[in-house]
């Protein structure tokens, strides 16, 4: 180490004035890059549970995950993760996140995904007819036809099914079930666009009234540092509040949660910040079962690792689900572990698909 430093000093003395100027410029750039890395790490430490991160080490490893802070509401669970996407900028990472298709990976159990316009019609949910014929989807159909107690809809929505039921139809999901869900999902998407999560009807079909917006706000309230870090972004979105100034990218999915088929509505937001950073938020603001609300926040910083422009990504996943409220002690640890594994799996697939992974 000492020998290298001596040689560098000797070389510098032999350099011409011009070369010396270039070296000085490189030195300034290097200092700038080091400062950018230090800023990213220090900002990451300020709001996340990752208080010590070695970028070089992180770049060589898989995603790092850890459970979030304990929360007083037993329905809540949070996991944080971070990783380095080598060779791509935050802007490129954001673009890749927007375009990534989770349905390509069966392990992630997302059966259908479809983007939505801001003024959707029932035709936007026609893909439900193409749902795969598997046990979770069949249980989803059965739960709908019975209007079972686990179905997360409002009383008003439940009445609509009674009126619309009785028709025929074939396929994995019968036509009346498709029609019912197309109506529910269309109406909920429109109310989200006009009034954010606050305008969503409650889950009160069978049991106490639960509002997804209250759950989202509860999740953020219990993680004050994260809420502060993302206050600017969240204040411009419909997450836990009325419609914000940022335009959401809307979508719906049919996926599996707790062995049940679930239709869910989502909205993604992102915005760039100073110094090439980005923040993004992705909320599943409605689910027909399995969970009340799921929120994922992203913070992306430009960093340089081994001379390559890269992105340090922090991801915070938080979920509110009735089933979590029944877990205690080691069962809760187990569910956290499963959530961490699922996030690791999703991030690994994403990195592999976007060539940033190893």
């Amino acid at each position, binding site marked *: 180490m000492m020998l290298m430093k001596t040689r560098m000093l000797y070389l510098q003395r032999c350099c011409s004035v011009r070369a010396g100027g270039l070296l000085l410029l490189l030195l300034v750039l290097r200092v700038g890059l080091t400062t950018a890395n230090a800023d990213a790490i220090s900002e990451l430490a300020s709001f996340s549970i990752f208080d010590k991160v070695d970028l070089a080490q992180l770049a060589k490893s898989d995603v790092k995950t850890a459970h979030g802070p304990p929360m007083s509401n037993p329905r809540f669970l949070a996991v944080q993760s971070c990783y380095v996407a080598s060779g791509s900028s935050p802007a490129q990472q954001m673009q890749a996140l927007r375009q990534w298709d989770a349905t390509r990976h069966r392990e992630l159990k997302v059966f259908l995904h479809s983007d939505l316009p801001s003024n959707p019609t029932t035709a936007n949910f026609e893909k439900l007819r193409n749902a795969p014929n598997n046990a979770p989807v069949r*249980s989803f159909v059965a739960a709908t036809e019975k209007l079972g107690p686990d179905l997360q809809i409002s009383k008003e929505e439940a009445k609509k099914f009674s009126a619309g039921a009785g028709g025929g139809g074939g396929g994995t999901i019968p036509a009346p079930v498709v029609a019912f869900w197309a109506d529910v999902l269309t109406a909920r998407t429109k109310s989200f666009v006009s009034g954010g999560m606050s305008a969503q009807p409650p889950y009160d079909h069978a049991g106490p009234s639960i509002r997804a917006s209250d759950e989202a706000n509860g999740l953020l309230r219990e993680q004050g540092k994260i809420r502060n870090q993302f206050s600017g972004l969240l204040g411009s979105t419909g997450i836990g509040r009325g419609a914000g100034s940022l335009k959401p990218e809307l979508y719906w999915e049919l996926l599996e949660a707790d062995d049940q088929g679930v239709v869910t509505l989502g909205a993604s937001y992102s915005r760039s910040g100073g110094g090439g950073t980005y923040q993004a938020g992705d909320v599943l603001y409605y689910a027909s079962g399995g969970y009340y609300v799921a929120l994922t926040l992203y913070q992306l910083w430009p960093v340089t690792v081994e001379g390559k422009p890269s992105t340090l990504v922090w991801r915070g996943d938080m979920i509110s689900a009735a089933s979590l409220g029944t877990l205690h002690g080691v069962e*809760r640890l187990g569910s956290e*572990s499963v959530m961490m594994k699922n996030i690791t799996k999703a991030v690994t697939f994403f990195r592999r698909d976007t060539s940033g992974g190893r």
Partner: protein
Amino acid sequence: MQRFIRRALAGCCVAPLLLLAVRVFAEENNGSWLESLSHVPFEYNAEDTYVGGGDVQRGPNKSVNDFDENDSIVHLVFTPRTKLGVLRIGTDWERFSFGLPNHAALPDTLQSVALVMGLDMQFSDSIIVRAEGQPGVYDAEFDNLGWDNFNLPFLIGGTYIYSPNLQLILGVSVDIERKYPVIPAAGVRWKIASQWLLDAVLPTPRLEYEMNKDVSVYVGANVKQTSYRVDDDFGTANGIPRLNHAILTYSEVRTGGGFDWKISPIVTFTGEVGYQPYRNFDFYRAEVRYHQDGGAPYGMISLHGAF
């Protein structure tokens, strides 16, 4: 792993440990002690089993016939979350009562009062480890208690979470007073289908079928093995002086079927009936052993849950 070994746990000195748990929990949540106390999570179990008339035999001629058994358990463990993991601090009491004839060289009561001191730790997204000790008094009559009535059996077990539907369990149970002080065990917890669960983990391996959200039925077993010290004059009173103050390892296996009925999110009622095919009273250091000669039917009820 949650039920890797369910053992009787402790009483009189649980209070300081409980306060420690509450304090750790309060610091973790930056709340007041009183506020935290109302939020301290805990698990409980109150269980009673009646085993009908069974027989044991020692050698070719010495039998103890047609005696029944009552096994009662009360278990209370606080499970606050800390930075290290989930603490397990509590107490457990277990009492076996046997309806023995007068001439039997067997104690008619075996009981334990012990603390539960454990920790569940998350080592990674795939591995959870439990370390738990049950220091306490393991004795027959609770007369003339001394330091040698104290024992500290403990277990260390790890769960490898292969997937949400499949977990592998490895563990070791240690009890220096037992005939075999170290007993390793392996198990698997496999959700075979949406309603079927194979929970092949000692001491209560089970195959469960979930009938609905609130009711499950199962077939399975319950394996018990605990060491107790008998009274100072137990041997003299029964004509075998070498059994005075001796260590007795009591083992039994129950096999049967039952149901779990979730009455509320925090209360589950369990009923089980079956047959006890194995029972063994082993004064192994004194080389006196009564082994199973005739099995017996049993019935068990329990109320358990967690907050």
